[in-house]
């Protein structure tokens, strides 16, 4: 039994992992893009973007999942995502990417705005252009500052993937729970915690390695 459960949970964990990785890969660049918009001088650009960030960060992700999945069908009569497994996964991915991009964008904005203006001015008087200034001077300082908050968000994401269950996206908890119905046992559900723990432990190690590598300057 233990072996069967482990294999089933591993399979569920692949679903978790797929959602996790795709969300990260897509939301980090999108977040950078949104952060640049939220720092735009033009209020017509900055205003709407800050508003969207406020809405996304101010409402539960679970609610966003439900609205994104059911909303198009209920409000516009267009069941955009279809009822299949792939459609549900796409809806969940969309919700996660959008949600996390907004959180990341605020981290990027904080990081970029925390660089003292003197760094830009020192680069400018040495004749560097905007591109050289960003890539040679600013970027690494920003990265150093955002690694700890990004690492927090990433570990939260590992656990948040379980929310996808509300629109019936298969992931590890779904699989764990199914043993209650099929075999009348609850321990597989508790056992899923071990998978989360191991994975977030791995990520913690990875991030502390990155932090150490950037420890040589202040």
């Amino acid at each position, binding site marked *: 039994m233990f072996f069967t459960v482990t294999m089933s949970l591993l399979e569920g964990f692949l679903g978790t992992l797929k959602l996790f990785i795709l969300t990260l890969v897509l939301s980090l660049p999108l977040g950078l893009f949104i952060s640049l918009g939220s720092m735009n001088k033009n209020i017509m650009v900055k205003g709407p973007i800050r508003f969207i960030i406020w809405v996304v960060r101010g409402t539960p992700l679970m609610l966003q999942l439900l609205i994104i999945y059911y909303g198009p069908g209920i409000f516009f009569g267009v069941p955009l995502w279809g009822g299949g497994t792939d459609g549900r996964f796409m809806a969940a991915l969309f919700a996660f990417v959008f949600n996390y991009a907004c959180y990341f964008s605020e981290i990027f904005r904080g990081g970029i705005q925390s660089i003292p203006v003197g*760094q830009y001015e020192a680069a400018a008087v040495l*004749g560097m252009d905007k591109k050289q200034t960003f890539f040679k001077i600013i970027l690494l*300082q920003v990265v150093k500052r955002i690694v700890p908050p990004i690492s927090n968000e990433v570990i939260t994401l590992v656990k948040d993937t379980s929310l996808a269950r509300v629109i019936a996206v298969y992931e590890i908890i779904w699989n764990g729970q199914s043993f209650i119905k099929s075999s009348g046992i609850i321990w597989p559900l508790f056992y899923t915690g071990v998978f989360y723990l191991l994975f977030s432990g791995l990520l913690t190690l990875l991030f502390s390695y990155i932090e150490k590598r950037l420890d040589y300057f202040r």
Partner: protein
Amino acid sequence: MPILEVKNLKKCFDKTDILKGISFDLEKGQTLSILGSSGSGKTTLLRCLNFLEKPDAGEIVVNGETIFDRAKPVTEAQIKSNRLHFGMVFQQFNLFPQYTALENVVLAPKLMASADKYPEIIEMGKNLLNKMGLSDRMNNYPHQLSGGQQQRVAIARALAMSPDILCFDEPTSALDPELTGEVLKVIKELAIGNTTMIIVTHEIGFAHDVSDQIIFMDDGVIADRGTPAQVIDNPSNPRTRQFLSNYHS
């Protein structure tokens, strides 16, 4: 011909006139110190020379070549090459924290050169740091250096671009008194070595010592201008006399 001519430079922030028509010139190899009370516009003047602020009126002429004329707008690329006539040493050093002392000095020159010039540039960087008394500190990061050492790296970094005129904005104001001396010493050596410099400072004794010319700024205008003997020892302007009263007593 003077190396620098500044003609009727004006700058206002939020409708307040900060520079109200500044004109002066500076001969090659000379040192000009700018004194004046807080808020009189000294930093703004240096920032205009380095194109960190855009003057509202006036002209800047270097070696007979007009590099800024409000009447004739210039492109971003021209600003980039024109500002290299000036070097700038900031009050807060503004070293790049992720680079060692030597890397701070050679970074910008390397960006402008081809790879085969890199050995030469690194050699020059080492020489400059030697001159600053930092031969044993080249591979330290800024946070491993004292304020005085950081400021000397910043001076080497500015010199590495071989500017025609090197500007200092209160280079020792962020330093403890015991570190001030070491920075003033290297600036004095530069003055003796005929580096053309403009120094904004509150170290009046030092300014008297190293300067060929002193400008006293008051409320956005040049209130007094002349040799140290004229401006500091025998100030004619009542404002200058008042400003220097602490120094003389």
